[in-house]
């Protein structure tokens, strides 16, 4: 089934779950609206709640390409949109000289050849707009808050028109609109102008039941009992005051780590030994150890 044909939020929930991504209703609604209205989806939320994973699952579901643009400070159009391959252009010129073609054709013809599409290096944004066949590609613009303001301004045109102008070649307009997912960790506010063009969803940590399901689908080797214990422990740890509460990614890691060392039931010793898979700050680990494991264990054991 083509992605554009989805007709209800339930179909989105179902489609994503076939790709092992268990979304909640809010996220599925946001995705549904984005697909139907051809608008970018802006996702914000704590690290490790599955923002990037959503884009990956979407592209697998759509059976289209995943085109990922990882933002960083100082990223510019050469890395994000396109760049001319100067070395190959020069080579082309030299070949023309060597074969005596420079004598035969006018210089303007030769120049026209230099700015041919074959010398164009397409970077992610241009790639995403060049797709000409269904299924649509999924363009993931990851951690946009790491890029600077100027870059954001420059994205505006692309995200509203879905086209890019290259002076030497003309305008590229997408025949097949890509599905755009933008993620941000909120280290700074994004411009209102950018937000206005997007649908927005704040991704929360999952509730215990859903996290159990997520662990079970992502790490099938983990038993139901262990998954429940892990999810409860994680939800407890998110409630106490930690520098970095564990995200879903970490709970999956932890559950897998537990299976790997052959544990099928949590106890104080096991938690102590494997805490590093779940909690990545020394201060947080100390805080948890100083609290002792009784509280978390009694919570975990509750039915």
């Amino acid at each position, binding site marked *: 089934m083509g992605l554009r044909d989805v007709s209800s*939020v339930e179909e989105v929930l179902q489609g994503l779950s076939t790709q092992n991504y268990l979304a909640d209703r809010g996220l599925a*609604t946001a995705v549904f*609206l984005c697909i139907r209205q051809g608008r970018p989806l802006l996702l914000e939320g704590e690290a490790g709640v599955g923002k990037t994973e959503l884009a990956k699952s979407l592209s697998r579901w759509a059976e289209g390409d995943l085109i990922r643009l990882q933002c960083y400070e*100082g990223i510019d159009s050469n890395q994000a949109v396109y760049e001319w391959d100067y070395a190959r252009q*020069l080579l082309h*010129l030299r070949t023309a000289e060597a074969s005596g073609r420079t004598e035969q054709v006018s210089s303007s013809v030769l120049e026209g050849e230099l700015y041919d599409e074959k010398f164009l290096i397409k970077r992610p944004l241009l790639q995403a707009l060049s797709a000409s066949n269904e299924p649509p590609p999924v363009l993931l613009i990851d951690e946009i808050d790491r890029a600077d*303001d100027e870059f954001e301004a420059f994205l505006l045109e692309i995200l509203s028109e879905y086209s890019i102008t290259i002076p030497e070649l003309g305008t590229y307009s997408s025949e097949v609109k890509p599905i755009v997912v933008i993620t941000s960790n909120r280290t*700074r506010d994004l411009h209102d102008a950018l937000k206005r063009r997007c649908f*927005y969803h704040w991704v929360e940590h999952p509730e215990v039941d859903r996290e159990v399901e997520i662990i079970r689908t992502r790490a099938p080797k983990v038993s139901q009992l262990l998954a429940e214990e892990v999810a409860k422990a994680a939800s407890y740890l998110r409630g106490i005051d930690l520098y970095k509460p564990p995200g879903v990614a970490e709970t999956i890691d932890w559950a897998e780590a537990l299976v790997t060392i052959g544990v099928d039931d949590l106890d104080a010793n096991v938690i102590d030994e494997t805490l590093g898979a779940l909690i990545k700050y020394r201060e947080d680990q100390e805080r948890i150890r100083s609290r002792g494991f009784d509280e978390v264990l009694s919570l975990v054991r509750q039915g």
Partner: protein
Amino acid sequence: MNQATYGSKTLDRYLVDFLDALRNEGVKVSLGSSIDFGLAVVELGAESFENIYWAGRTTIVDRPEDIAIYDKVFKSHWMGVEPLVEEVNKIPPLDFLFDDLTEDSELEESIKGENDLLTVRYSGLETLLAKDFSKCNKAELQELFLLMNEIRFIGEYKKSRRMVPTKKNRNFDFAATIKSSFRTGGEIVSKNFKKSGERRRRLVLLLDISGSMEVYARVLIRFVHAVMASRSEVEAFTIGTRLTRVTRELSTRNPDLALSKASSSVDDWSGGTRLGEGIKEFNDRWGIRGMARGATILILSDGWDRGDAETVSEQMERLHRVTHRIVWANPLKATPDYEPLAKGMAAALPHIDNFVEGNSFNSLKDLSKLLTK
């Protein structure tokens, strides 16, 4: 809104009223997003509250801070559960503006006096610039505020990863050289070079607004606004009993408007001090994630803390690990024989790069010079 689908006007009306209710509660709803909201409701169908709820969450809410307000308004508007009442026990908004000047008898007197003694007042400018804020009267402060808007605060630069062209013989720019050679038929006539560009280093201002800082904080918030108006990449927070982000509010250029906006969003003015907790909240929610990374942090505080000095020390250490530089401006430092005896201050000192004054206009000017180095 598609009339044919819904047949009655009531739904439109309901949606519009709902948006109005959100606006009244301070959520920013642009015309564009209200249209999106309407379209989203049509797309999803209005038969269930859940659809309407998520339609609005996706199209109107664009920051997590608004989620709670949205939920509240949604509940009262659509479910009729909790009627919308004005919050009665809300603390009256703080007035950064020093009351209405025309009603101020002290000022009127000084203005009256001004007519007779104009020269006295202006010759006092030099003294005024060095005068401690806590000793200034309202008229003097007003004058300082005007001057403060003149401070041009540049801040530090750092190397950017983006390269820029240069004439100097630095890094050979292969691409630019070849590109320019096309003009000469592929013959390289001159070489091009590039070097690292420069970017403004992000500046984060943390202003202590607790009771002990009251006199200074009212003035320093003007300084914070002046800094924000003069450059980009600035973030501002107030710390009292809790942390409040005032970046958005203070971004308005007009100082009076900016301050009145900020004052209505801060509601722990002149309360107790929980400096350590405030810095912790900053670290947890903003700083360590990225805002403080490689940034210059300017803390404006006297270092008094009711909380645990241990927390201040721990949190300052954490902050210091990720920042480029921490500057602490303490108005009390200007007092002769000042010793950092306040618990919080003593705990923070080992993790500070520059410890400066911040009690007068001149000291603020020095501060901006220090931060431009």
